[in-house]
């Protein structure tokens, strides 16, 4: 099978969503191919986080279709029934801006909870896998720490390990470095780059333009609830076709 015949890992068609009168997504189409890294950028309020959250059913869209790993998540604005949605979510890892580590559990238990409860893996094996993941994100020494004692960057790396423990086929990152002190951003991006290099399919909402330039296969620019431009990073950053893309990039890059 050639690359063009592969089914997209995430396939979004005509996705529409409103909070009351406020339309946040107006008919979005997007494909994320296996092993692709798609970075979504755009001004705040452009709908990029909502788009991402629709992709694992944390937000219910009113219209459109989403297929994940070849399975329908949303069909004509109707979401999969809960039991099957839960199963499908196991295939999709999610990393949040505010980490959302389980505050009452140690780092190790944060990572093993999902595999033990949902994949029926015995504690011993789950812990061995968790320690391997912690080693991978450089936090093997923090296995017994409680989340409150970690720095933001460490929390986010644990959150990534927690998501990976479910062995997802796609990872969604919702502004993973926006809540971090500037000096801690690098350690999280490093882990994300490593995942990308390993071939993980990733959809990343971020304001880190450097990351987008370096890692993205496709950069998607959103504004006003729609995609205004998409393409390889070289094209988006050096020769954007849309004036609004140019405005946005100027405003963001001037800040740096």
């Amino acid at each position, binding site marked *: 099978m050639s690359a063009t015949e592969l089914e997209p890992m995430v396939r979004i068609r005509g996705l529409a969503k409103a909070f009351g009168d406020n339309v946040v997504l107006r008919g979005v189409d997007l494909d994320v191919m296996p092993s692709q890294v798609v970075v979504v950028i755009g001004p705040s309020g452009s709908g990029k986080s909502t788009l991402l959250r629709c992709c*694992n059913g944390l937000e219910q869209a009113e219209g459109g279709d989403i297929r994940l790993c070849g399975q329908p998540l949303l069909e004509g604005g109707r979401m999969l029934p809960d039991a099957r949605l*839960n199963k499908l979510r196991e295939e999709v890892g999610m990393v949040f801006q505010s980490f959302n580590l*389980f505050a009452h559990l140690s780092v190790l238990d944060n990572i093993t909870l999902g595999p033990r409860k949902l994949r029926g893996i015995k504690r011993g094996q789950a812990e061995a896998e968790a320690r391997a993941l912690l080693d991978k994100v450089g936090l093997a020494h923090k296995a017994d720490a409680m989340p409150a004692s970690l720095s933001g960057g460490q929390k986010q790396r644990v959150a990534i390990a927690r998501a990976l423990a479910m062995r997802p086929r796609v990872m969604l990152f919702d502004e993973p470095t926006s809540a971090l002190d500037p000096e801690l951003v690098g350690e999280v991006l490093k882990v994300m780059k490593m995942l990308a290099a390993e071939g993980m399919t990733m959809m990343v909402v971020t304001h880190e333009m450097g990351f987008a330039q370096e890692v993205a296969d496709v950069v998607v620019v959103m504004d006003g609830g729609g995609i205004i431009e998409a393409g390889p990073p070289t094209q988006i950053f050096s020769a954007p076709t849309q004036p609004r893309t140019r405005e946005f990039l100027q405003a963001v890059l001037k800040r740096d």
Partner: protein
Amino acid sequence: MDLDFSPVWANWPDLMRGALVTIEIVSVSLLCGCLIGLLVGIGRLDPRRRVVYGACSAYVAAIRGTPLLVQLFILFFGLPQFNIMLPAFVCGTIGLSVYSGAYVSEIVRGAIQSIDRGQVEAARSLGMPARMAMTSVVLPQAFVRMIPPLGNEFIALIKNSALVSLLTIHDVMHEGQKIISVSYRSLEVYLAIAVIYFVLTGATTYALRRIELRLRAGGMVQ
């Protein structure tokens, strides 16, 4: 004015037996009240589930809006009209449990709703069903936050239990009144009863404080 505590000392075993009854009825009511409160509190989380939400809300409104004494009298003196005759101890326990449950339910609901939404989202995004997210992630965290207001509620329950003496239950209040009816030493006996209640509430406060400190020492900074 002279105080004479000799009737208290002479009848001390009766008072202690009464205190034991108070402890019994409060313990059972406390457990049942917490169970009711947990279920009703969870039932009031989502107004979109109209029937459950409506029923739980009506219960809380009715119980909080009427005096405990009236509720107890309905159970004990009212129900026999329908030929439902429950033993006094059962009436007292049901009355206190149902009353306490209404207050506990608000404590439970408040604590659950104070847990950051992100915790549920993280659990659900791993693939957990809503119920598992509640039991494995939300409730363990909410429980720590319930302890201080639950302490208030337990203390209120201990003190409110004095009302069951009016249902012929031989609790510490009832035993005290029997001593007074013979000795006419109201002040001394009521002071003794007050001290006994104070010891019970103090012990409860102390125990809950210990539990809370232990849980916090576990590393949950909240």
